[in-house]
């Protein structure tokens, strides 16, 4: 039995919520790459991770979403790639203290392959260096997330697989009338087929839209491939009210979709932008209610 199968024996697992919006609440300035806080403010990053473990997350991520060689290199931080990624895993592992698994986050390069802003070779190398550092620091699995381009997702997957860890690839379905396309036009079916063929251990959907759009996407991923499905939805879209930024979805509304997602075959459920530990507590309550 593979490590992933063993964890999934108690599926659906509850994962964590947003990190970026939580770090902003702790004083992260716009324009600062959040991942640099792994070195400059490890205590604050750890407090976010710990809040999720205490809320009941069975899987937490790492603050390494943007710590690939392309993004860090552009910010003049290329020489800190290994330190930032290692610290990210170490912080999450300290917070998890064996109570939660640590899946290390790998986000997109932020550059487009098709316009030549980044070459496939450079992207592969950028993901490869990050994946190696995350694996060396002891991550339980790697999560390639918020992808919109199938080609870039494949390159990240290829790089991540060289570590031998389980790899999940998750796309942001934020376009189209029904929010069932990525920005690059990929459908859940295309994502499931291509990622399964390229050797992913699980596929998923994160960010993009509110949780009500994810049930349909989850069903379609599940119907196209036999892999476990990872779901992490936003707390709706940000709204500006009286100058302050708020997200439209409440923790209770969010959690009320848990049974439908479980029914649709989700193996992991959590939150993306705008979600907080309160959302995770609500998910945990809903799940225990559903099982009782």
């Amino acid at each position, binding site marked *: 039995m593979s490590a992933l199968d063993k964890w999934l024996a108690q599926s659906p697992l509850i994962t964590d919520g947003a990190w970026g919006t939580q770090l902003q609440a702790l004083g992260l300035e*716009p*324009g600062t*790459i959040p991942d640099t806080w792994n070195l400059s403010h490890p205590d604050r990053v750890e407090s976010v991770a710990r809040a999720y473990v205490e809320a009941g997350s069975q899987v937490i991520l790492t603050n390494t979403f943007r710590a690939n060689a392309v993004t860090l290199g552009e910010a003049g931080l290329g020489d800190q790639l290994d330190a930032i990624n290692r610290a990210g895993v170490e912080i999450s592992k300290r917070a998890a203290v064996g109570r939660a698994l640590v899946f290390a986050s790998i986000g997109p390069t932020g550059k487009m392959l098709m316009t030549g802003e980044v070459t496939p070779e450079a992207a592969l190398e950028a993901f490869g260096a990050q994946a190696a550092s995350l694996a060396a620091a002891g991550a339980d699995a790697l999560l390639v997330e918020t992808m919109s381009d199938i080609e870039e997702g494949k390159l990240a997957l290829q790089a991540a697989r060289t570590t031998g860890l389980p790899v999940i690839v998750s796309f942001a379905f934020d376009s189209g009338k029904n929010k069932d396309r990525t920005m*690059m036009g990929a459908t859940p079916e295309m994502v499931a087929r291509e990622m399964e063929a390229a050797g992913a251990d699980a596929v998923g959907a994160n960010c993009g839209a509110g949780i009500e759009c994810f049930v349909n996407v989850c069903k379609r991923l599940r119907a196209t491939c036999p892999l476990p499905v990872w779901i992490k939805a936003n707390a709706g879209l940000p709204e*500006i009210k009286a100058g302050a*930024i708020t997200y439209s979805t409440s923790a209770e509304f969010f959690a009320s979709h848990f049974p439908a997602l479980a029914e649709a075959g989700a193996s992991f459920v959590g939150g993306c932008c705008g979600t907080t530990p309160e959302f995770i507590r609500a998910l945990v309550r809903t799940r225990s209610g559903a099982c009782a």
Partner: protein
Amino acid sequence: MPDLQKLYDAVLSGDRNTAVAVTQEAIATGGDPLELISKYMVPAMDEVGRLFECEEYFVPELLLSARAMKGSLELLRPLLAARGAQPVGRVVIGTVKGDLHDIGKNLVASLLEGGGFEVIDFGADVAPEKFIAAVQEKGANIVALSALLTVTMPAMRTTIDALKQAGVRERIKVMVGGAPVTEQFAAEIGADGYSDNASAAVTLARRLTATAVRP
């Protein structure tokens, strides 16, 4: 004269090589550059925009069509300049200060170039002073601001305020966009226009230039 319907088709299907080849042939046989643009290429880009709005086209198709359009325009522009024709408009574009995301902004820049605009792209994390300088020194008549993060949206207001302070706000049109930006927010901060996707940004820029001061 080549069959110019092929030029329309090449832009619509994003076939840069054919667009360039047909344009070369048309120029060699005395075709009118303005007619190529207004009768074939712009209508093709309009159709691309319509297909995008209907969700038959997605970002990759938009980019390919913009690339085909740009390839053809590069051949035609020197001919137009020799006649003294001005670009449709001169746009300075950038992601606002504090925001490092540039994928959406790059897409808008590509499509504006495809739409015949001259584009000055400052990249990401752009200070208000740079936009002001571009208006004063380079004669930009549209300032296009992008933000992906909710926390950097206020920098759009700061930039518009800085343009006012510098006394150049009346000379230009300001358009804003980016995932968290809304029509309401655009109105609130005193922008002239908002669009929620890259294709609509070109339509908006055309509408704004119709009332703007020419570069």
